[in-house]
């Protein structure tokens, strides 16, 4: 019997090595796998490369992981947002490396990694500082920038519902990077608000089929009241 549901956070986070590239879902706090990020902090893994849309806010979660000095580099689109104090302190002190990527290029690099596409040409960022030093090509009269796939060692995602096969559904704008990142890592760990029996998720509405998912942890956001 396939059963990807794990009973605790330690089991969910087992086997994450120092130096790993960690894909973290979410856009702002929505769809961000907060419990798994806490588990990453507790796991003790360091020298990490984190791929995430944002660079954390406040002093908890991703911000705390960075403050503990466990993140060598962050690859993101928008590290500066209200309350991103830890990132800004570390960046100003030269204690964290930053790779800034346009949001659609980040999404497509992740998609490509999951889809077996090593690189692609995109019009985004052509003629800007973010394309400096990159290979370009003119195709049918338009200029494009070569971008490479961005695979992860581990993806941490948040689902709305999950079953024991690892099938996932998403809720509203909590979908964001989660289904894309779930395809792009060697090990995909999902936290979910609800566990459903196998067969109870409508097949037409499953956002991530279980073949992409290795572990599922039940971690409801009770405080959110939804």
């Amino acid at each position, binding site marked *: 019997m396939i059963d990807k549901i794990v009973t605790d956070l330690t089991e969910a986070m087992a086997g994450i090595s120092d130096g790993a590239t960690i894909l973290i879902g979410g856009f702002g706090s929505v769809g961000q796998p907060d419990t798994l990020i806490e588990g990453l902090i507790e796991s003790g893994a360091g020298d990490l490369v984190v791929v995430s849309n944002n660079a954390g806010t406040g002093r908890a979660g991703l911000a705390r992981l960075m403050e503990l000095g466990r993140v060598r580099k962050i690859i993101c689109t928008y590290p500066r947002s209200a309350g991103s104090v830890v990132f800004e302190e570390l960046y100003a002190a030269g204690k964290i490396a930053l790779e800034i990527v346009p949001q*659609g290029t980040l999404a497509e690099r992740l998609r490509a990694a999951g889809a077996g596409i090593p690189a692609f040409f995109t019009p985004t960022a052509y003629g800007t500082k973010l394309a400096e030093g990159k290979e370009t090509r003119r195709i049918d009269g338009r200029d494009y920038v070569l971008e490479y796939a961005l695979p992860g060692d581990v993806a941490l995602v948040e689902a709305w519902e999950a079953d024991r096969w690892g099938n996932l559904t998403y809720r509203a704008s909590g979908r964001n990077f989660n289904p894309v990142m779930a395809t792009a890592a060697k090990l995909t760990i999902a936290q979910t608000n609800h566990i459903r029996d196998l067969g109870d998720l409508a097949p037409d509405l499953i956002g991530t089929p279980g073949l992409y998912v290795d572990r599922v942890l039940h971690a409801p956001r009770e405080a959110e009241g939804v």
Partner: protein
Amino acid sequence: MSETVQTRITGWQPLDRKAMAARVADDIPEGWYVNLGIGMPTMIADYVPETREVVIHSENGIVGMGPAPTPEQDDPWLINAGKQRVTLLKGGSYVHQADSFAIIRGGHLDLCVLGAFEVAQNGDIANWSTGDSDMAPAVGGAMDLSAGAKRIWVIMQHTTRDGRPRLVERCGYPLTAPGVVKRIYTDLAVLDVTPDGFAVREMVPGLTLSELRERTAAPLIG
């Protein structure tokens, strides 16, 4: 000089932010799929009449975004690209991040309205970085939107707070995308980017072309 004093002397008044947003909304026809950037562009949605169906896309994965929620509608799972709580209209849908930017890059949006620091007469836009090396850069979806939407319009103040023109011959700030802006709505005028320079389509009542020229660092076609 305060606006009141300026009005008394010159007889014209710049549009406030709401009037600017409303002016852009006037020009968006029914049936368009539109992305509105963070800040003043987001306000435009409030001025599209309810009887005119315009479908708003938000780059975090919403097609058919609605206005801010009432307390009963409030859902912490539903935010826009500016991370404010929003609603979904009837007929709306959600897509993941790669699909959301496929919509953008694939030319499926009729229009994107962005804020900007500067727009050059050839349509170059600078809106993501002041080039300040002490600050971490942050780009979000600005470059994808600029490169991908069928039309880019810009909404911005005509000059900076200290009076420097934002419409220029060449952008001084780092580019977001070269040659993409079609139209600019400022607090003073509506201008189109043309092969011959900025063409003035409309000015606030009482403003003269020479007064607009004084506030613009590129040739204007009246």
